[in-house]
């Protein structure tokens, strides 16, 4: 009965085809929107492995739709014989697609699909931009003021105000893109800063950007320099669509590799100690291993059941650790990808992890803000397996509380003496890398996503929601400088760096936009600018030297 019904319907459909088609529908133009509305939440490439969701069929690209590995669902020219159409018109609601819907697809949609197949299933013009149809506006319609507060208090007569007060610099460039990744270069005085759509490489010695890299896919969620400093890996992508890792040479800043394959943005990346491999962790729930020579994916680890937020290589390069929204930390063999152990017991997402450079301890934290130290002494396990010694492998060593909000990133200095953490509670904290005891709490106020330690442990850089990078001295807890980088406008670089004392350095285009305020009143800029625009003072501040306050007599 059902079959007769559906054939009858198809005959009718074919009838209409002849009657009223001008141009045949194409995949990208007509079919993809229908699939997106009704089918591809389940039938997508990212769900291919989850057979109970996708049934092994993806409909989110032309290739996947026509070349289903199991069995073709579309036979060009023959809509009646195409399984795709048959499953849309079948009467039995348990078998009919879309599943879980009491209603079949609208008649017009089925008609269009049948018409597309009957006209040979043409591909049509593939849209350039993945967010179909959106032409990203180069800039939002209006700009909000970004207020940069300083401690500089000019004498009242200089600014012609009755009451003196600290200077504020106002830039109409907001909202700033949050800072989502930070990393110091292992040997040179460079700091790489990741924000949506760009990576800014700052030369801290010169107190100005060295390079602005904009050839990224979208979000930049992690930045790593290779151990020898010759490469920079930037991980990111377009959320919920695809992710990649881009590798740049740090001498020419040339893009040397784009490692594609993740189906969602990549949240974390790590170099192997020999610098030859990369591991990446993505929202697509996988960890992937990449060979930098061949630029190929060597393996996909699917052990996590939810977003993977962080990945790290052990100092000997033999194993990997990853942290996930599935509330676990897992250790994998870096060669085979085999799971070694799962650290569990957390009640919420694990967002961050760092392996101690001695390779024997691992720290994780996340939505539950306590830092958990784990024993990760693999050699111990081997011994235990041999039955010779006791091992504490995989045990919690300590829980170290302190943060009042989710911990977003954890990082050790290469010597393992210092551990830094960035948190949604608006603080960055420094911890003793040996015993985990708290050392310093740096209050910033805005949610902090990223933290980086200078390899010698002398400075810590932090960035987050407010889009500013702050650099602190780790000994004194003192704020040294703020860095602010914007996308270029009309080919003009736009950036500004300033010390809390008020000294600043800025690109000409940005300088032209700066306004000064005291106690919310705009003040005449020339005299202020003359006193504050002092790149050398900013360089000194960035070097950790004390600078005298401006406007001093």
């Amino acid at each position: 009965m059902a079959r007769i019904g559906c054939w009858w319907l198809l005959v009718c459909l074919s009838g209409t085809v002849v009657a009223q088609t001008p141009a045949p529908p194409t995949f990208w133009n007509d079919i993809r929107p229908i699939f997106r509305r009704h089918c591809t939440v389940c039938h997508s490439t990212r769900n291919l492995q989850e057979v109970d969701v996708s049934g092994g069929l993806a409909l989110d690209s032309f290739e996947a739709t026509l070349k289903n590995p199991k069995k073709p669902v579309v036979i060009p020219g023959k809509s009646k014989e195409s399984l795709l159409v048959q499953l849309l018109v079948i009467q039995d609601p348990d078998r009919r697609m879309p599943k879980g819907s009491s209603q079949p697809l609208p008649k017009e949609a089925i008609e269009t699909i049948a018409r597309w197949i009957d006209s040979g299933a043409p591909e049509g013009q593939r849209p350039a931009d993945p967010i179909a149809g959106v032409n990203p506006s180069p800039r939002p319609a209006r700009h909000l003021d970004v207020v940069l507060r300083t401690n500089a208090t000019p004498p009242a007569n200089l600014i012609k105000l009755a009451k003196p007060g600290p200077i504020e610099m106002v830039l109409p460039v907001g909202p700033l893109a949050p800072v989502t990744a930070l990393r110091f270069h292992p040997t040179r005085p460079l700091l790489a800063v990741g924000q949506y759509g760009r990576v800014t490489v700052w030369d801290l010695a010169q107190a100005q950007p060295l390079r602005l890299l904009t050839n990224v896919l979208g979000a930049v969620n992690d930045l790593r320099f290779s151990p020898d400093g010759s490469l920079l890996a930037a991980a990111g992508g377009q959320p919920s669509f695809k992710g990649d890792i881009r590798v740049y040479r740090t001498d020419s800043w040339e893009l040397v590799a784009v490692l594609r394959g993740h189906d969602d943005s990549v949240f974390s990346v790590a170099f192997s100690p020999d610098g030859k491999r990369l591991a990446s962790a993505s929202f697509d729930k996988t960890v992937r291993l990449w060979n930098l020579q061949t630029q190929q994916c060597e393996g996909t680890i699917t052990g996590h059941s939810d977003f993977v937020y962080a990945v790290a290589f052990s100092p000997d390069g033999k194993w990997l650790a990853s942290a996930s929204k599935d509330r676990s930390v897992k250790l994998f063999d870096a060669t085979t990808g085999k799971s070694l152990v799962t650290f569990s017991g957390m009640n919420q997402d694990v967002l961050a992890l760092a392996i101690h450079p001695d390779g024997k301890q691992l720290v994780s934290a996340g939505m539950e803000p306590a830092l958990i130290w784990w024993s990760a002494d693999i050699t111990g396990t081997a011994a235990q397996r041999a039955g010779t010694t006791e091992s504490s492998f995989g045990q919690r060593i300590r829980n170290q509380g302190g943060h009042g909000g989710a911990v977003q990133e954890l990082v050790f200095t290469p010597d393992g003496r210092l551990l830094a953490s960035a948190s949604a509670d608006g603080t960055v904290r420094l911890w003793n890398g040996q015993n985990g005891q708290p050392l310093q709490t740096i209050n910033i106020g805005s949610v902090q996503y990223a933290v980086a330690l200078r390899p010698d442990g002398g400075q810590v850089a932090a960035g987050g929601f407010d889009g500013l990078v702050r650099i602190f001295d780790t000994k004194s807890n003192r704020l040294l400088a703020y860095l602010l980088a914007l996308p270029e406008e009309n080919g003009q670089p736009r950036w500004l760096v300033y010390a809390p004392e008020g000294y600043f350095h800025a690109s000409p285009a940005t300088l032209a936009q700066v306004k000064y305020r005291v106690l919310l009143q705009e003040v005449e800029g020339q005299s202020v600018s003359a006193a504050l625009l002092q790149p050398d003072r900013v360089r000194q501040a960035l070097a950790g030297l004390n600078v005298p306050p401006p406007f001093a007599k």
Partner: protein
Amino acid sequence: MTIQSWHDLLRWAHWKLTGALVLWMVSLGGPVNANEPTSSGVRNTPQASPPASPLIRLEILPREILLDGPRARQEVVVLGYHQDGRVWDWTRQAQWAAVGPQIRLEKTTVYPVSDGQSAVRAEVGGVSAQVPVQVRRARAEVPVGFKTEIIPLLNKLGCNQGACHGAQYGRGGFKLSLLGFDPSYDYGEIVRSAEGRRVVLSDPERSILLGKPSLQMEHGGGERLPRGSWEYQLLKAWLEDGAPAPTPQDPEVVRLEILPAGRSMKPGELQQLIVRAVWSDGRVEDVTATAQYDSLNDGLARVTANGLVQCLEKGETYIMVRFCGQAGVFQVTSPFTEQPVSFEFQPHNYIDELLAKKWRSLGLTPSPLCSDAEFLRRIYLDTLGTLPTPEEIRAFLADTSPDKRQKAIDRVLQRPEYVDFWALKWGDLLRNNSDILQAKGMWSLHNWIRASLRDNKPLDQFVRELITAQGSTYAEGPANFYRLGRTAGEWAEVTSQVFLGIRVQCAQCHHHPFEKWSQDDYWGFAAFFARVATKNSQEYGLFGRETVVYLRPVGEVIHPRRGSVMAPKPFDSPPIADDGTDRRQKLAEWLTAPQNPYFARNFANRFWGYFMGRGLVEPLDDLRATNPPTNPELLDALAKDLVEHRFDVKHLMRRIMNSRAYQLSAEVTPGNVVDKDNVYFARRTVRRLTAEQLADALDYATGTQTKYQGLPLGTRAIQLPDSSVPSYLLDVLGRPPRVVTCECERSLSPNLAAALHLLNGDVVNQKIRQAGGRIDRLFQQKKPLPEIVEELYLVTLCRPPSAEEMQAALHEMKQAPEPRLAAEDLLWSLLNSRGFLFNY
């Protein structure tokens, strides 16, 4: 039983008096009369046509408009008043015009253009009306507010509903607070979590927050906001503003204005609603587009997502409107008859006047008065849970004085069974149960309740003693109230539900989905109990090992989300200053204050429901703005009466029973058949006897006694202090286990086990035949057969048999091999008849 009497049995069963077998099964399923018109299934209500009579004037709603801010808008509606008295919503047909360039109109929505004074004008067939419009800050830079604009939008789009991102673990890794009641959490999830994965502030249209629900990207929830729609633009504008976060200074919605408040409509008629939110900063905002609408009765009226109401059938119902934690209703009334009804109805008191007013407005006609026998049975069951004796029935029927009903009411209220029956009710409400309270606690509470009822202790005093109780639960009856829970929150829930009829449980974890109660309300109320503690005593008290309820000198309730200490705060009132004395004293004062809008209404509704078979608000213990009473004026009047008579429950009972409405027959008449569930009380609501009433009535009719475990022989079911006393019969008839605080615990719904137990079970048969039982006694005493028949009728149906019934019964007895067997069969049939099983 012999085969022969099985035949008899079947014959009896078909006897017109009873029809028991069939009727038992049928009648349990719903109202006794099954011949009401069914309206289920297709309802393809056509649109009604406008009144033919001339249009006299138009009225635009709202009557004045203030557009404040660049995104302000106002929906307008125009009502036409016609000569025949009808009102018609002309909104969609009227010619609308903006007077002046300060505003623009898109269909029936007014938008600001520039600051100044303007007006909107509507015209229908030569009749016109206009309302002033003031525009302010039309071009001001007003950032989009997360709490005031974005959360309502997410609510309206359904993003945060329980099946989507509002689920416990969210959806697709994205979790929002259920129904948007935790804006700061939602803000963090949307803007900050996963390094701001969901938004690109520097390039808003790149945000998956926009891309997914507009289906530019795959979205499990489908298309929620088409690209370019005003919802999309608003979300985008918020991102362009840098996604400003909610702040503690953000205003709250304090109430909703719904225009019009209610309408009398014909089936098919449409009415567009206007909903305005009044914010705590005084701003009044049109939220017609973002409010959520639900019909409380889909069969009577339906409503679109934009607030267009269509009346579907005759009757009365409400459209529930929700916005940002506040809720309100729009009343849809569609009279049952077109013509005005006229009926003879001599009101006895205000109850009758207010009911009759409603009947007239809806076109209902009350049923006639019930017979004297029905009346007597009714007041005995409702007040005493007991059937009247044959002597009492005969005396009442023989009485010819005009005020005999009134006197009978006064008499029953003085009977000792009054204490038994209402102690049972309070035992239910206070969950007196030895499993929880131990036997000694159970007895102590039971005895206190009985003593209170004997003294007719006013309700306020009764409740005050419960709330402020302390000491040993074995010695102090009311102290057992604090064993109904273990935490301040549980005590707050029980207090609120039993004494106020407010179900506040939801608000423990999230804002009540259909009410204004927030977590602040819940925890503020719980703070009254913050210092109550219990301990097990081994050395203290007479009995030892009892639980002692005491007050600690310190103790606070912490808001689970905010982590802040909550000051004790009654509902709808400012927090109460803590002066170190017992907070419960203050709570009791507030609870029982005459001006407390909830306390008296709650009890008025409950007692109305106990006597009338159905509350003015149903369920009885779910009073809220979105569950309005079917006769609000009457509920208010009953509450006022209760307050004015110092919470004297017997006074309220007397008032209800003396009303003519209470004394109406259960007969369904053509004039009130349309009110299927009898929500307007134009006749008596028939209900099955409760478990205890029925068990006692069975004992009484068969002249036997059931022995309840642990209690002396002769203890009746209505006298049981404890729900843990084993009785299969009571359980199968729906005795409440007293485990949860809810009127719904007592079940009167039909179940097969109960039916079979009564029809086929040994219990009834044994009771009928028992030596020393009624039949045995009657035959021992060698009573004449007609006397036997009459007595059997009087002890079951509480009326003498009709001549026909008598004749038929005597005939059967003569036919039977033994008259006694026939008498047994007669009693069996009577016990399984509607006339016995039901309270009518």
